[in-house]
């Protein structure tokens, strides 16, 4: 009996996704990523009656200005499909990292799986910024230039398309010498991730 149950679980595991009612793309139903060392299945809420409620369904947003589709000529803007591709091809191989630029308390409440938190206000702290560059694999050489040959690709997001933090932070990174082709801007941000019913994680 026990073996049968395990077998059943294993089978549902194998076929999970194949019979998903709500898929991501025609080829992808789910994706495993690593969040703080643990595998997390990223997929979409399967209840087709589920509605987004709460903070991210809010339409009234004074002072939160709609951002252009491109934040900079050389920085590529991506959507969810490209972000998932980034997680799979880069994030899972430590060639890239997803950065959540929102304040720590907001990140703690809920974030996109695999994202690490670098609050956008860090851009005003030169010492911290240099440390982050080093962690990302960019070496500050003696002559002051930044060696980014081995630097990781970075995808940035903040709260939504009305959030300025991503563009401000990316501009600061460009100034510091981080190459534009190694940075991506997920403009939809956490709000779009939520309204499409994607998996989120709590960072307590």
């Amino acid at each position, binding site marked *: 009996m026990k073996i049968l149950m395990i077998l059943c679980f294993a089978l549902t595991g194998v076929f999970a996704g194949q019979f998903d009612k709500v898929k991501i793309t025609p080829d992808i139903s789910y994706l495993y990523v690593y969040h703080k060392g643990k595998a997390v299945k990223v997929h979409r809420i399967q209840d*087709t009656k*589920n509605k987004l409620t709460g903070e991210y369904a809010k339409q*009234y947003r004074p*002072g939160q200005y*709609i951002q252009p589709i491109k934040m900079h000529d050389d920085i590529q803007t991506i959507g969810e499909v490209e972000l998932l591709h980034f997680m799979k091809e880069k994030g899972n191989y430590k060639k890239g990292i997803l950065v959540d630029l929102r304040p720590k308390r907001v990140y703690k409440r809920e974030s996109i799986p695999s994202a690490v938190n670098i609050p956008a206000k860090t851009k005003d702290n030169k010492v911290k910024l240099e440390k982050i560059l080093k962690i990302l694999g960019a070496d500050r050489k003696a002559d002051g230039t930044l060696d980014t040959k081995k630097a990781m690709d970075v995808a940035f997001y903040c709260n939504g398309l009305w959030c300025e933090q991503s563009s401000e932070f990316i501009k600061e990174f460009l100034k510091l010498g981080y190459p534009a082709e190694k940075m991506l801007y997920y403009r939809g941000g956490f709000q779009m991730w939520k309204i499409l019913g994607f998996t989120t994680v709590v960072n307590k």
Partner: protein
Amino acid sequence: MKLRYVVMTLIVSSVLSTANVVEITDGMPYVKVEANGNKYKIERTQDKDAYLTNTFALTSRPSPPFFIEPFLVTSGVETYGELELLDFVSEKKGLLIDARLENWYTKSAIPTAVNMPFKLFLTKTSVREKVLQDLGGKQDSSGKWDFSTAKTILLYCNGAWCGQSPTAINALIDLGYPKEKMKYYRGGMQTWQLVGLTTIVPKESK
């Protein structure tokens, strides 16, 4: 004392009501557009308690037919956001096309949009010929289309999970419509409403 307070409040609130607390973007409280003989004021909701609660708040739709669309339909066709759409309609850079089926469009649409359901572009019909001519296409005696002087068009549908406008764009590419004359507003009705932008109920559909 109490009366003075009330009067003051009234004055303050009347002043405030003329200014938008929620701007579209910094320094842009609203956009006024004239199209198809109508005047529109496009702005974001000023209602403190506004939440998205209609069908566009749904997170999950059955696939097929609904899948999340890539950021780009194809390289060469630019993807637009809300600010680019507003600039497109207010500067009269071309025609905004709602590519959804008519029953969606008549319920609610983006101001200035005309309805050209995506299915219309898929099969060779006299209606399609008429629409392509309206867009500025010219057909030679062999039936081949020339869109070199055609209008620039911006297409949208229901949201990032809607394949209708990408399908229309791909069909138009097959017909020879130049990619640089087509733009794609991927956010569609869902994102438009999520950020509280003005929608209209079109008086009559085309």
